[in-house]
């Protein structure tokens, strides 16, 4: 039991390493895009990029030392916890991503309504469905009036936008 507790208290470095790895990867890619460019285009790549690479390498060294001493693990639980919310969180992220993909076919207003209603039902565990649907309808209607009709922003068009266009 004690050993389990010890391992739980270890610093979870797996999650913490994501940002430095992304930073390093992006900096190397950025440098690769300017390596043949004039010095004026390389200024930030070498001034900022070199400092960032140095910082990341220091972080890797600190992480390696902590791993070597047994003070840390490569676990990612700090990124995922609390576990009971994980299905909801993944579902919500998937719905948000779906919103961005589907909006091009269903149009702005209808996709906003579907996204709002589905997300509210998901996060609320299916409770108060009428309230969720009414809230989603109001929000989609407000978005349509403010952004499409009033400010005339060119959001992707769908059945609702075409109907409004035909009526006006």
């Amino acid at each position, binding site marked *: 039991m004690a050993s389990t507790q010890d391992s739980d208290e270890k610093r979870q470095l797996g999650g913490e390493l994501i940002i430095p790895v992304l930073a390093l990867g992006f900096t190397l890619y*950025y440098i690769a895009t*300017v390596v043949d460019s004039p*010095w*004026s285009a390389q200024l930030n790549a070498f001034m900022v990029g070199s400092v*960032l690479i140095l910082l990341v390498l*220091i972080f890797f060294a600190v992480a390696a030392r902590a791993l070597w001493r047994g003070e840390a693990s490569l676990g990612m639980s*700090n990124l995922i916890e609390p576990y009971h919310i994980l299905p909801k969180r993944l579902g919500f992220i998937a719905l948000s991503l779906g919103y961005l993909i589907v909006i091009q076919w269903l149009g702005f207003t209808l996709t906003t309504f579907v*996204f709002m209603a589905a997300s509210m039902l998901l996060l609320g565990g299916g409770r108060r469905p009428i309230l*969720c649907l009414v809230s989603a309808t109001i929000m989609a209607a407000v978005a349509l009036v403010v*952004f499409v009709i009033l400010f005339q922003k060119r959001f992707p068009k769908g059945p609702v936008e075409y109907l409004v266009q035909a009526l006006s």
Partner: protein
Amino acid sequence: METSFAFFTDLFLHSLSLWWVIIPSIFLGFIVGAIPGFSAANTIIILLPFTLVMDVEVGLVFMVALYCASRMGAGIPAILVNIPGTAGAAATPLDGYPMVKKGQGQMALSISFTSSTLGGLLTTVIALLSMPLLARVGFYMHSVEMVVVMLFGISLIATIASKDTLKGLIAGFFGLMIGSIGADHVYATPRGTMGFLELYDGVPLIPALVGLFAISEAFMVIEGESILSEHSRDRLQTGTWHQTLEGVRITLKRWWHVAWTSLIGLVIGVTPGAGAAIAAFVAYQQSRAFSKTPELYGTGHPEGLIAPESANNGVTAGTLIPLLVLGIPGGATAAIMLVVMQYQGVNTGPRLFMERPELGYGIFMAMFTTYLLMAFTILPLSRYMSRVTLVSTTFMSPLIIGFTLIGSFVPREYMFDMYLAFAFGILGYIARKTGYHVAAILIGVILGPLLEQYMLVALQKSDGDFLTLFSSPLGNILWVALVASLILPAFMKHRQRRRKSVFAEGEG
């Protein structure tokens, strides 16, 4: 025309008579400021056809009032739900949001409104009295001095990341690299764009802002039924006017803090291109550096909220000075005002104050009146606005995602910006969960292109000599101030620790 006391009194009474323009503009500006993606400049552009047909004076008063109110409005979502309405309010949630989480949302809004109002009033008066003198600041701030001002902003990264400096610096420099995406300033060589044409102009700020702050926050808050704890909910539900009045009292008690941080905003605002975001972060950093309790910053400390709010409202007066005195717009809103003035045949620059002093000084007086009227119209709303935080996360999170994704589309009308906001949201979520500060990334994204631009000019002028960064007297003074602001907190911390140990030994 003589600029006597009677002249200013007349101007004040005249601007008060324009209340019918000012009050609706305040509410409109307040709403657009609170919507991420909708800046005052956007709204003024949309309403430009109306402004052009108005009398020039009424049109300018409308724009000034909307501009001031939007600056204040941007602080509301920043405090209540950790979503800055504009980049200028990006430093506001650092201490504003922790106050909300403690159930002090009403007080936080009250502090924000009072410090914004006081900061705005004070800097407007100073601008009115010292306009010719302040206008010269723009002349002295060259590329070298601007590089140091940018570095002031970057040094904040270390300040924000006081819990883990290394992680803070990685986040900040990663932000700087992201901010360096885009075509270079001289040869337009695409850099780090991953082949996306939409990134040739650089990373757009609104998707970065809403992604890092709002979308990541929406993914975080679903962990609880509400963003508030049980205790904080009770505290907010049973809150009375006392919290609002307490916020006013706290701010008035720290009048000196309001004064000097708003002056930082005024001076930075006078410098073309610097903007409210830099002013707010520099003010926050300086406030923390000279505070007796720097360890309280980031935990819901009133001074950490007063500093950025006073500073970003100080910027509003500052940006108008180069426009009116020199004819050089200091920001987007000022540029639109220039267009309106030119359309109406009004000359800006020194001739404005000779030919139409009532208009030149009148714009600042309208700003003063706007802030005065905001104190009476907006402050009482803080009690009711803070109740937004009582909404369940079941409804709050989809709303945040929906409206911020829409907000990221609005400025450029590119679907790409919505994808970008989502990508920044995922990055922000990982950063939050693993102990990297999203504000540090954002500062980097804001400062990356600016730092490069000023550095490039400085080096081009000196044929690539890096020592040029230490060649200007004002620049060197700023360097000393920068080093002092980095060393002083550590020195004061060390001294406090020594005092405590001496005290403990004495007691022992």
